[in-house]
């Protein structure tokens, strides 16, 4: 896998998110209460709300526009809502955060 360093874990507040921008739109990188990291497109499947600005709880984020709850693990909308946000592999190593953007992940 092609890991790309995007910054330190300290750059992201616990239960928060930061964004990185790419030629293909913004990617939101989330940090949970247990210091796990997850990366999703910064677009809610509902009406493209910026997920990075939502409230993070457990391994989920609530979209700031209409309160859809998106799983950070799968990118899928929860409850009765149907939809999917593209996710990227992400990891923390020695305090640094890496994500992987490959043709395979983008093609999904």
């Amino acid at each position, binding site marked *: 896998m092609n890991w790309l360093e*995007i910054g330190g874990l300290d750059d992201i*507040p616990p*239960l928060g998110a930061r964004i990185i921008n790419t*030629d*293909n739109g913004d990617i939101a990188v989330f940090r949970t209460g247990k210091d796990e990291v997850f990366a999703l497109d910064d677009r809610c499947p509902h009406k493209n709300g910026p997920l990075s600005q*939502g*409230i993070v709880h457990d391994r989920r984020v609530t979209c700031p526009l209409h309160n859809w709850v998106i799983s950070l693990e799968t990118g899928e909308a929860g409850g*009765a809502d149907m939809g999917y946000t593209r996710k990227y592999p992400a990891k923390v190593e020695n305090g640094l955060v890496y994500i992987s953007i490959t043709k395979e992940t983008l093609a999904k």
Partner: protein
Amino acid sequence: MRALEELLKVAREKYDITVFGAEPYGNYNRILLSLVLAGDKTIDDIMLNDEQWYIDNGITLYKGKKVTNIDRKNSLVSTEDGISVYYDRLILATGADPFIIPIPGAQLPGCISFRDIHDVEAMLSVSKEYKKAVVIGGGLLGLEAANGLILQGMDVTVVHLLDTLMERQLDKPAAELLKLSLEERGLNFFLEKETEALIGEKRVQGLRFKDGTEIEADLVVMAVGIKPNTDLAKEVGIYCERGVVVNDTMQTYDPRIYAIGECVQHRNATYGLVAPLFEQAKVCANHLAEFGIARYEGSVTSTKLKVTGIDLFSAGNFIGDDESEELFFKDAAKGVYKKLIVKNNKIDGAVLYGDTIDSTWYLQLMRDGTDITDMRDNLLFSQAHIGDSGHGETSHIASLLDEAEICGCNGVSKGDITKAITKEGLFTLDEVRSTTKASASCGSCTGLVEELLASTLGSGYSATPKTKPLCPCTDFTHENVRTTIITYELTTIPAIRNFMEWKTPDGCHVCRPALNYYLLCAWPDRYEDDAQSRFINERAHANIQKDGTYSVIPRIFGGETTADQLRTIADVAKKYKVPTVKITGGQRIGLLGVVKEDLPKMWGDLTNAGFVSGHAYGKALRTVKTCVGSNWCRFGTQDSTTLGIELEEMTYGSWTPNKFKMAVSGCPRNCAEATIKDFGVVAVDSGWELHVGGNGGVKVRATDLLCKVKTSEEVLEYSAAFMQLYREEARYLERTAPWIERVGLSYVKHRILDDTEGREALVDAFLASQKQAQVDPWDAHANNPDKRAYIPIKHVEMEATKKISRGLR
């Protein structure tokens, strides 16, 4: 079954579950049987748990197996054909049997009850061959059966012993109206008739009454009531009276055996409606899971008739007695009748006919035991008549077409909602919200959705309980949490979650902002605001827009600005290429469409010119709207602008449970619209009138007059006290209007007007918290070198992404 669902929810692993059922089906929604008869639903539509459900949940189902013995000594149940199963705990849910009048001919073919799927199937098949039907019993069930048979093309006559239909739910005037509209539908009535015998040889051919008269009938439906089925319990020596006697935890006299549902007698009452059964199921499941905190204390029951196009509601003691008073309203031409029974300033019972839009509200007031003194004047005209925007003309919900839009935010129609209720087996407001999204956004149609639940489920509907938990993460209420924060000096969100045993690790988007606010309000000088528990608007100090950009609205005190201020705003708008500049509803200037990266820079430019944040994004003091007052206006009696500026200078920056708006008008012409604000001031020649608890928006509510004061110093004092009381006692996200309706204006008056020391203490607390609150967030953020919250932490440019993105386009 409901008890098992509840049990699976709370303690899935605790028991191996076996179910015995005498009927050859899974379980279905019995209260919707009349809709199957009316042809609105099929049997499949009303199945609740099919066999797959039992398999999925690891439950052993013996259907069509009748339990004939319980060996209590050895904890063993056995069926007639010899299946035996040991139990640790046993639930009896044997239900009730239809009461068959013991008259000659009652056993003839063509005479049936209205109780289960067999009965409905029998009625449907008879209706294809025969024409004349008689329903004995003019109660809820009888009328629903009669309506269904008419829709199947039969001639239907209802025979009733008394002179009032549905006498257990309706008073005479309402019953008269009901009879009229049912007659319009083609039903015939024989009232005050006692049936002596059914006549016929091979099958039913007619009825003979005590007075000697007879009528023809090909089908006789007996719907005169039900009696708890206690046969099995009695046989094995469990104490029964009219039903199986249980205590508040639903245990019978044998503590290892529970009983719930229609077979039960609890505190001397038996119930044939579904809502109480659900409450019992919940309590029973809780006890089985050994949580042991829940108790069943009886139910306030309400009734709706499930006949399309007839709006009818009844609850509680609707006849009244010597100690009660009646409030009523009747408009015979429109077919509307409403009666409320009031006892000790509380609603004790209600009958509504023709307009039942407020039924859920009345039921809530009854269950809560709310003192209605303050709302007595317009109780009968009430909530629905205060102009819900977006919901005009929807007060007769049962007669609305299926296409009628109920939820204007999410575009959900009446048909969508009723279909979801019956298809998915929904019973509560929350279930409808999560399944259909109706009333899940602004919530203004909540009453309508509750109405639809009630009219679709009839008596199966149980209103949202009085004490609602703060959110699904906890069973505690807002009030529990606030008291605990103070009593145990909890000062952080994790501390609250630990101490109060939250069910989720981090809380959720509902509880976190609430807890953050409660802590901020409780400990203004100690609590460090948790940005991650703020909704984005308050975290970014700007309003997020639908495209993810933000609006920037600087504070303009009292709405009075200067040429220099306007020039600064114009320069900033140009410099950052702001696409839209808009005068807002609260007399401020909004710059809309700002990208997040620009926010700190814009704030810097604005604060350098002396502006502070306008808090247009917050659950906070928003704006104080003013008119020009006696400075310029030929009608003005007082200087409203100066007072408005003083008010805003004192209160800006304050966080409140929900947004808080003020206005000051310089004369009773009230150009600043002060009487639809949270706190409104209207000048009169002799001083100022103070108004509270108003709002525009979804549900317009005009203010209540709090008091009149003489000086502008007093206005400031009373406004600070009122705001602080609201800050300390309203639930998070509750605006002043619903808060005042909940606690009552008398209470607010008592705290602010009668209790002088209390008022002064509130003012002191407010001013103390303002010391921390008036640190300008824009200034702080603009000067903070850490901009990671506003700009991307990394820019990635890669061949891979480029190629792919081109490919994707």
